[in-house]
Every structure is written in C-alpha cells, then in structure tokens.
C-alpha cells in the first residue's frame, strides 16, 4: 500500500511533522497482552474491589436495582453499540426511534411535556438546568437547598462560576431532613430558579407543590433534581407538582453501578421552553412518500450550528445508556416500575423500623421517605460501617461525615427490591453486634 501511494516507509507518512517533534523512542507503556493475560490482569484488579461482592445498602446517587437480562443483550447488539450519532437518518432509524421512545418515557415519568435525548448524568443535567433557567428568566440568582446531593451542588458551582450566576445555598431543616422554610423566603425578584431534590440526599420527600408555588409567586422557576429515578413509580410526578425543569439520574433504570458511570442524565421541561433545551432532540418527520421516521431536530440550538451562542456545549451524550434505560422501562413496563417502587418503599420502611428499634440507634429526620434514610449510630459511622464490612461482609451505608462534617455518627442507608428480608435482617443484627464491641 505504501508503494501504491508512492512512499518507501511508514516514517514518510509523518513527513509533515517537524523532525524535532517526533517521538524517537517507543512509548513507555506496556508491551501487548494476549486475551488470557488481559483478563487475568483485570480479574486480579477486580479482586481488590471487596465492596462489589457484598450485600449492599449503598445509595446516595447510585442504586442497585434488578436489571432484566435482556437489557444487556439489546445494548450489546452491533447495530446499536457500534453506531455513531444518528446524523444520517435513513440508516439510523433504530437509534432515532429509540431516542423518541426514550424522550416519551421521560415525559411520562416526570409529568413534563418535552425531554431531550440525554445528558451525561444527573449532576451535569442539573448544572445545565440552572444555566437554562438563567436564559429563560434572564435573572442571575439561583437558590438551592443543602439537601440536594452535595456532589451535584459542587458540579453546579463549577458550571456557574463564570456564567454570572450567583448560587446561594440554604441549609436544610435539621428536624425533618427536608428543605427549610428559609428556602422559600430566600426567593426574590432576582431569583431565576429554586433548586431542590426529591427524594433528597437524605431520602426525604420534598413538598414540591408548595415549593413550586413559592417559586412561581416571584416569577422564578422550580428546578427539581432526582437521583433515585425509581421513586417516580410511586411519587407524584414533579410535573404534576408544578416543576418547570426536571432533571434526573437515570442509572436506576437498568444501568450497572460501574463505579459511577457511564450513567444517563434525564432532562425534561415545559413545551414553551423547548427551544431553550440543551443537547439533542429527536422529532417525528416524514419522507416524500408519507412514511414516518425520526430526525435530530431544532439543531439551531446546538453548538455545531450556533457555536458560542448555543444552549450548551454538549455534543456526545449518553446514547447507549439511554437505550439501556429505554429497554429497561419498556420491559418492566407500567406495572413493573410501580411494583419495584412499591417494594423499595416497603423494604426500606421495614429496615428503618428495625434499625430504629436498636439500642443506641435512631433516625434523626422525620420527613416522609422513599427508599433511603439517615441513621444515627452510637459511634463514629465510618468505624461502625468498616467493622460491618470486615466482620459481616455487608456494605451497610454511606457515612455522612464525608459531606457533612458535623454528623460523624450519621449514615445513609438505601434499600431496594434486590435486598431480601434475610439481607436486611443480617444488616440489623450486624449493626447491633458491631456497635457493642
């Protein structure tokens, strides 16, 4: 082939690179491994993830739910996972129709009117929602409750730091674990958006209808974030409560934990704001013979057309993970989502009841909850949970001191439909035992 293009050596392919810039040595990365060696190596490293093999009660933005077998089967099809962004609709209808169904499902679950083709994850979707609220209202103040996932707030802070947006965080109510009355009082005529999460970081359900009223009274938008999307199977939808923008982490819908990613951000809003949405949108279209198909649409919002005036810089999103969520939601269907959500609620209530009855343990927050709750133990939570892991082989929860240094004994427990009663009972007994050392 070199000969066919008139070259003598592979080096000549790089003649346009000045000599002094060429790397004149082999890369200092390892020599090639065979398939067997590679798998051994990763299996060995995987063996150092003790946490992955234990019964787990970890939530806090990433959840263990049952994943029907067909989800991985479908997303492993060549036609889906080795395709590119559907820029050529005639040979991308599989991807485009999937996204259209995904957008519809997101609207149905959130109670909103339009949804996009996905964002990177829940945290960046929230940041984009805040930027959109500023565009829509032309106001620059954003108020958020500290009961929003702390990492989500960090991401929002990073995104808004150069956008002329002032992010004000208001402490949550230490009795209920919900956002405080001070939150609504902080809204004024300069407020673009009120940002809350429900169920919030502590697992407490927020009174979204009241918060929507408070925001709308001052002409601000209510932005609702959801990390545990399974809650939508049971809780009144944010749309029905009056939310203006709803973002969610879609990982609960058929996506493995995978140490935090790739996940999928859901983004939904009111129809009147459709042209302010960040990211890709798929819409219905027809060919000249009247056959229905789907295309990427309203592209004039996007970076490849509008450049610095685009609604966002996002290009690649989470296509394949959106497909996983779509397959999951269609397989579980209307009744499956309801049943899974119901089981989460009941099992978490069961676990909370038993843990609260242990000597030295209490539940510090009184707000209504879905499948997560904060527990206050008799000793340092990190120490308690470390003992539980070592001795009982259970991942019992997330110590809150990582996020709230004034809560050394508090930890967050999450229970889902995959936690059997036996596992829950073992957790309760284990906590009792290791706290009495």
């Amino acid at each position, binding site marked *: 082939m070199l000969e066919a293009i008139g070259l003598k050596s592979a080096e000549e392919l790089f003649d346009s690179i000045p000599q002094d810039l060429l790397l004149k040595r082999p890369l200092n990365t390892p020599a090639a491994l065979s398939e067997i060696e590679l798998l051994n190596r990763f299996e060995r490293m995987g063996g150092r993830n003790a946490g992955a093999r234990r019964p787990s009660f970890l939530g806090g933005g990433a959840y263990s739910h049952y994943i029907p077998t067909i989800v991985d089967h479908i997303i492993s099809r060549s036609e889906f996972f080795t395709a590119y962004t559907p820029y050529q609709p005639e040979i991308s209808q599989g991807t485009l129709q999937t996204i259209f*169904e995904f957008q*519809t499902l997101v609207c149905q679950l959130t109670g909103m009117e339009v949804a996009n083709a996905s964002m990177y994850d829940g945290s960046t979707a929230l940041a984009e929602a805040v930027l959109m609220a500023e565009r829509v209202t032309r106001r620059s103040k954003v108020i958020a409750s500290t009961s929003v996932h702390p990492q989500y707030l960090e991401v929002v802070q990073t995104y808004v730091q150069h956008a002329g947006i002032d992010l004000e965080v208001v402490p949550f109510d230490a009795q209920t674990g919900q956002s405080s009355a001070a939150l609504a009082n902080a809204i004024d005529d300069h407020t673009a958006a009120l940002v809350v999460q429900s169920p919030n970081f502590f697992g407490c359900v927020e009174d979204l209808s009241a918060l929507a009223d408070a925001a709308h009274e001052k002409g601000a938008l209510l932005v609702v974030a959801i990390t545990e999307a399974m809650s939508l199977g049971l809780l009144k939808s944010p749309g029905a409560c009056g939310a203006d923008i709803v973002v969610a982490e879609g990982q609960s819908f058929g996506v493995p934990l995978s140490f935090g990613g790739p996940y999928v951000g859901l983004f939904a809003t009111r129809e009147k704001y459709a042209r302010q949405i960040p990211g890709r949108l798929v819409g219905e279209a027809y060919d000249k013979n009247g056959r229905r198909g789907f295309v990427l649409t309203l592209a004039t919002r996007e970076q490849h057309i509008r450049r610095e005036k685009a609604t966002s810089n996002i290009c690649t999103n989470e*296509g394949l993970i959106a497909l996983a969520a779509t397959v999951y939601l269609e397989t579980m269907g*209307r009744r499956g989502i309801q049943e899974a959500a119901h*089981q989460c609620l009941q099992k978490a209530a069961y676990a909370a009841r038993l843990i609260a009855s242990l000597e030295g343990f209490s539940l510090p927050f009184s707000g209504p909850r879905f499948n997560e709750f904060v527990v206050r133990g008799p000793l340092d939570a990190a120490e308690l949970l470390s003992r539980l*892991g070592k001795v009982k082989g259970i991942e019992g929860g997330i110590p809150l001191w990582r996020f709230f240094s004034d809560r050394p004994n508090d930890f967050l427990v999450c229970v889902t439909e995959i936690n059997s009663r036996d596992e829950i009972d073992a957790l309760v007994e284990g906590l009792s035992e290791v706290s009495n050392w």
Partner: protein
Amino acid sequence: MTDGITKVTSHTSPNEQLIFERSQQGRIGYRLPALDVEASPLDDLLPQEFQRDDDLEGMPEVSEVDVIRHFVRISTWNYSIDIGMYPLGSCTMKYNSRLNERVARIAEFANVHPLTAEHDAQGALQVIYELEQHLAEITGLPGVSLQPAAGAHGEMTGIMIIRAFLDARDGAAASGRRTMLIPDSAHGTNPASAHLSGFSVKTIRSTSEGLTDLDHLRELCSHGDVAGLMLTNPNTLGLFERNIKQICDIVHEARGLVYMDGANMNALVGIARPGDMGVDVIHLNLHKTFSTPHGGGGPGSGPCCCTSELEPFLPVPRIVKTDWTVGEPTFKLEYDRPKSIGRVKAFFGNYGMMLRALAYILTHGNDGLREATEAAVLNARYIANGLTSDYDKPFNSPPMHEVVFTDKRQSRKGVHTLDIAKRLIDYGFHPMTIYFPLIVQGAMLIEPTESVGRQELDQFIAAMRSIANEALEDPELVRNAPHSTRIGRLDEAAAARKPVLRWKP
C-alpha cells in the same frame, strides 16, 4: 469500475411501530420476587398528597418477546461499524473490541458502588490511576483527570483550568484577559466551551494551505487580552499544523496558554506528543482514539491532560498512589486541592469507558498503538490518492488520518455533497462527514481509521468514483438517493417548524 460493488442496503422489517402503539393492557414482561416483608398501608408510609395519582398511564405494557422483537427489528435500520466502513471524518469510527466489552462487564467492576470505602474499591482506583499514567505518557502531559464525560466536557474542563490559572497568576489583572482564539476550521464545541468559561471568542483565519494563519495569530495576540488558543492538531482538514511550536511560542509570549483539542489524537499516538510541542492542556476522546464504542451517540469519555504547572487546577478528587512497602500498591482519593476548578461530574467520570480504554492500550501494547496510528494515516492517504482524479481536493498537502474533498466538480451538474453522501448509502457504506469543516464549501471529510483493509478501501474508492460518474451521466439518480433504504430523505425543515418530540395517545 464498479466490479465487486453490490448495492445492498435493504431493511428486513420495515413495519415496526413505536412500543406505545404495541402496548396492550395487562401484558407484562418482568417478574420480581414476592414482597418478603410485612407490607404497611401505603398511606402510613407516604402522605397521600405525595403519591402518584396518574397510575403511570401511557407507559407501555408489553411482554419480553415484544420488547426483543421491537428492538431487534428497529436495530436492522441502523448502519454500524460491525457492518462496514464508517468513514466519518473527525469522529474516528474504529472497531470496538469485544474483549474490551467483556472487561467492562467483569462483575467486580460492574457492581462496585462509587461511594464504596476506598479500601474496598482498590482495584477500581488502580484502573483509574494506571490509565492516567498511560495517557500522560502518550500525550507528554503529566497531569491527567478522567472525570470529564465526553470531548466537549473535557474541553470545558481544560478551558476552565486555563481561566483558573490566569486568575491565580494575574489576580485582578486577569479580568482584561478574556479572549479565546479559535481557528475558523474548529469544531463547534470549541467556541461553546469557551463561552461556558466566560471567554469571548475571536476567530483566526486559515491560510490557503489550510493551516493557521500566523500573521493573523500575531495580530490577534498583540492586544494583551488573549487568554489562550484552542487548536485542533492535526486540524479538522486532516493537516498537521507544522508551525505548532511557533504557534505555541506566539501565544505564550502574549502570556496566554495553548489548549489542544485532541479529537484527532489518533493521528499522533506513538508518533509525536502534544506536551513536546508546547501545548499546555489537551482533552482526549476515549471513544475515538481509544476505541470505546460510540453507542449511537455516547457515552464518551473526555480525559483532560495538562502540564505539571496546571496540574493543581484539575478537578477533584484526584487519585493518588500512597506509599506502600509490602504487597500491592494502594490508592486513595484526594480532595484538598484549593486551586482546583472544582468537580465537573458526580463520582469519577464514565468509568466503564476507562476500563475499555485501558484494555485497548494493554492489548495493543506500545508497538501496536504506533502501528494503529500508521495504519490510520496510511489508509487516509490511500483514499486521498484514489479519489483525486474524480473529486476536488481543496488542499495539496498530504493528509494525516483524514482527508477533505469537495463537490466542486459534481455541483456543476447540480449534484451536491449531501446527494453524494446519500448515494453512498446505496453502495453499502456509511457516508463521510459532510459540510464540515465549515470553511470548505461542500466539504466531504473522510476518515477510514485503521480498521479497514485494502480490499474495503478499494471498494469504497470504487463506489465514490462510480458516484462521480453517475453525477455526470444520471444526476437525478444521485439527487434522489438513497434508493435502497426503508424510508427516503425526511423533511427536516417541516420537523423543526412544528416539532413533535414525543408520542401521545
């Protein structure tokens, strides 16, 4: 000339509906174990006003086989790399190894929770650490963060790092330094990312050779307001910016920094390193250069690599190796980096993509990484050579990993780039990138990658030459393409005028 080309794309299952249109009340495709704890009355657990009251109306009710058939049918309407060559310029559609998929599905990685205590997730942290080390070596830039979720996210991270560095270096005086220079051939994400970081954009002209105009660069750098330059190298015309060192010097003398868009890094791996060229910060696309699957539009992963001077500004947390004496190394997360731009994503980034990229690096080995680069460039050269007799090539310089042609000759017959692209579908190929870069009228940007052999390259060239011939002899045939797909060209203008963005009963 068309010997060996078969016009094949035909879709076997043309009539699949939306899942909502297949839904039938009472159908179920799942089974959960029965609830094994005593159920409390719902109202006792959750106040009624917080309960959903729409019964999830409209959500599908289908069986498992309904779902399987639904997705398998619509999947046949997609083109994919596994079917054939996908020569999208600047998108780097290379083969996605099944082995990498298997690695990402190893249970101990797939099931590890991101908030697991560090000592119970050492393997997960080790993967991040090792991949960072390899990317540092490949780019020649020692500070690496894998947190950004895609290329544009990595760009934003890189530009925010530049901003934070300038603000720390110049204090209040930095407020006068808010101009980001971007060549007119750049990807649209560049200006959008610069805008997100609070910069205004000035555009640098390209020369008739397709390279950055140094005189224009000097002029733009002479006003004292330049924060930096965002440069793609090789640029989006597939040309190596051979003055890169000088370009970096000019920007550095103006006290700005150089950001390199690493979308085309697959032309350089093992051959040359941005860090050696004077570049300060770069993003990589693991889903391009390191072959993690594009998945129909993501997930990606957009690591950000920078000089040691910029390293303190990278997103938190950082993954560090601790001192150890016996056994395996240990890793921990560090949050206390006061100069950091902050967090750009929850948790650690698109971790599953990191596993795949590390597997790619380890299975290729250092030799294999270089060979992949050579093959990618060789293939692009071969196409450049094969098409020059039939298509207009706006720049003479030999291309690196991708080559741009135009429809100049064909448009005289009323056949345009879009038509050529659509006609290519009838020949069984995915079209190239079209109308990008914007500075080339009727651009067709072709990137074969290393994942095609000579036979397929010859077929592609034959198909393109056949289309050129058709454009002369039967332009209508080309203008009405594709002829072999389930649907024809869709009316995108009508779709945007009255958007229908969801199904309704």
